[in-house]
């Protein structure tokens, strides 16, 4: 019967177009990625770098067609530098906003909060700035910062190796550190490493994070006359100490800072020769790849426009970019947004990032230790060790 046949055809057509519409709709519904950042509060100075990197990455990603052919939308909320707010906002992102994927927040405290939430909902959490690997006990978290699983041991060893490579193994060391959780353990680990490698500790000082007066500390370092000063500094501490040392006319022969705020340190004329660690700096060979080149150029433009004092890509921006690269790679590798599948993929595959090829199958999902030694030379951070990632022609300079 014509009518029935016509009816069936119309039903088929309707079903098909409904399917097509859903398909098209699915094509155009954005993939929503949620995270928080410390947009206000004490941590905001560094968090704004992560905001900028995220924006750049998502923009470029969408230009390339997004994820799985769908546009990507990044929902970022302000956790006001407070871990309890971060926790609540991640719960909001997951349970109320129902985002598809998560990206980590800034700094260890907030990441721990986010990790707890991610664990309860079995969501993948890629993060970029976590400092205490042995606290990362969730199996679906993945670090973009290639700290290695035992930085308390590996970082000091790398630093000593770097010094040894230019024949400058120190005989005496002063270890001065803030009690900030994510670097205190590094300094304590450094003390052990120095002892094992026969470097004599002539001074050990700890200060509370937030200390304003570094005069007495500088005076004690000067008095101890060390060959090498290991400074467990984060944020401005390093600068304050350098200023204080300069004020008493003291310049340590070799000085190393764990996590200095990059801009202020590189701009200070007295910081010439200061050492630190990095996973990426804006010079060859690491910035030579097309992706890295484009990223560093875009970042510089946008940072300048945003009136940021520091416009070069360094550790923070690089770790952030890496995190996004990991997320994109996992999604493309599994062609899905399923957290379980993504996590399984990351554990068994290597990801090509601006830091190099990263793996995540070590303890706490950490992989290789890619902390290279960098130095302030002529107002720029240059990686000086190991040689294969060092800036061309750059060597560790000792005064």
């Amino acid at each position, binding site marked *: 019967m014509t009518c029935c046949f016509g009816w069936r055809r119309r039903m088929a057509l309707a079903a098909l177009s409904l399917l097509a519409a859903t398909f098209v709709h699915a094509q155009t519904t954005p993939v929503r990625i949620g995270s928080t950042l410390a*947009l*206000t*509060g*004490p*941590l*905001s*100075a560094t*968090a*704004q770098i992560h905001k900028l990197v995220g924006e750049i990455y998502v923009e470029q990603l969408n230009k390339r067609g997004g994820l799985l052919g769908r546009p990507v939308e990044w929902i970022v909320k302000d956790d006001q*530098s407070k871990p309890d707010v971060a926790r609540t906002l991640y719960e909001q992102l997951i349970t109320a906003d129902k985002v598809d994927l998560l990206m980590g927040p800034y700094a260890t405290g907030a990441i721990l909060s986010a990790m707890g939430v991610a664990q309860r909902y079995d969501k993948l959490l890629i993060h970029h700035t976590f400092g205490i690997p042995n606290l990362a006990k969730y199996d679906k978290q993945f670090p973009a910062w290639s700290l290695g699983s035992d930085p308390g041991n590996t970082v000091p060893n790398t630093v000593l190796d770097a010094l040894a490579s230019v024949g400058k193994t120190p005989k005496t060391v002063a270890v001065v550190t803030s*009690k900030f959780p994510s670097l205190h353990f590094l300094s304590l680990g450094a003390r052990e490493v120095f002892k094992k490698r026969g470097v004599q500790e002539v001074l050990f*000082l*700890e*200060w*509370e994070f*937030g*200390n*304003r*007066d*570094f*005069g*007495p*500390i500088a*005076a*004690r370092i000067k*008095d101890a006359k060390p060959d090498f000063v290991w400074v467990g500094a984060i944020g*401005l501490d390093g*600068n*304050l100490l350098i*200023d*204080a040392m*300069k*004020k*008493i*006319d003291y310049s340590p022969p070799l000085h190393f800072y764990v996590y200095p*705020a990059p*801009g*202020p340190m590189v*701009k*200070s*004329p007295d910081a010439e020769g200061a050492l630190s660690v990095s996973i990426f700096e804006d010079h060859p060979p690491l910035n030579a790849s097309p992706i890295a080149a484009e990223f560093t150029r875009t970042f510089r433009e946008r940072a300048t426009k*945003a*009136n*940021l*004092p*520091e416009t070069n890509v360094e550790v923070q921006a690089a770790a952030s970019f890496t995190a996004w690269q990991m997320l994109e790679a996992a999604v493309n590798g599994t062609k899905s947004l399923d957290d379980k599948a993504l996590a399984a993929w990351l554990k068994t595959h290597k990801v090509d990032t601006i830091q190099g090829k990263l793996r995540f199958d070590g303890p706490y999902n950490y992989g290789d230790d890619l902390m290279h030694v960098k130095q302030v030379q002529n107002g720029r951070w240059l990686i000086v060790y190991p040689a294969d990632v060092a800036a061309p022609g750059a060597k560790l300079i000792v005064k």
Partner: protein
Amino acid sequence: MTLPSATLLAQSALSGLFVGALYGLIGLGLGLSWGLLRTINLAHFAFTFAAAYLCYQLVSSTGIDPLLTLVVIAPLFFALGCALHWLVQRFEVTPLNSLLVTFGVTAIIEAGIQAIWSADFRRLESHYAQAKFKLGALFVPVPELITLGVALALSFAIWALLKHTDLGKALRAAALDAPIAAAFGVNQRVLALLLAGTCAALAAVAGVCLSLSFTLAPSQIYAWVGVVFAAVMMGGLGSALGPLVAGIVIGVSEALTMAVTAPSWAPIVSFTLLIALLLVRPEKA
């Protein structure tokens, strides 16, 4: 542990003296405001930092000497201080409520600073930063010396004003008993506005001195609140010399602790001293 050398102790004490002088300089306007105007002005810290940022901006854009920026900045903040106090007077805000109002003002100023200069660190580059000279075996950095000098000068000037001039007496009278003072011809409203403006101008001076030695970030506003409040309360509300003395005591005691033992113990010495002082001789505090 080897005993610290005399030079080490002296240098540390000097360092503590300088940072304490800054506590006292910031606290000067705060204490006057609290004691004589009955306003707990949390926004004093925001004014200090706003002035520091303005100084940074003027120096970066025009290259003039940081101290000269006060010519522009001090009157500006004087006006701001008057405006804020006019608001307080108009609504007859009690001291406790003034804490809330000024907290709101601080939040607005902090947001404004971050909007203009971003949350990132700003450091004033000036020729003062490198200048220092030697006094025997001790090094004396010039920016800190300027801060100390300014703190001493202003504290003494205000002390002299309050104690010996008619204006000062009128201010103190108005603070003690405004209606009676008014009966004696003291124009309390105008005086209060002048004083509030002066306190804000003092905050501006403190801000400029701060910018000479410290790196700025918007969230740093709150880093100073605790210790400066302590210096003010210890030195006595409405006192001109008190905050400076108290600030120096705090700074030096912490510095000496840091010179002799683990620096992370430093706050305990100054604050235990304070607690002991309060309990044994509260009137002297």
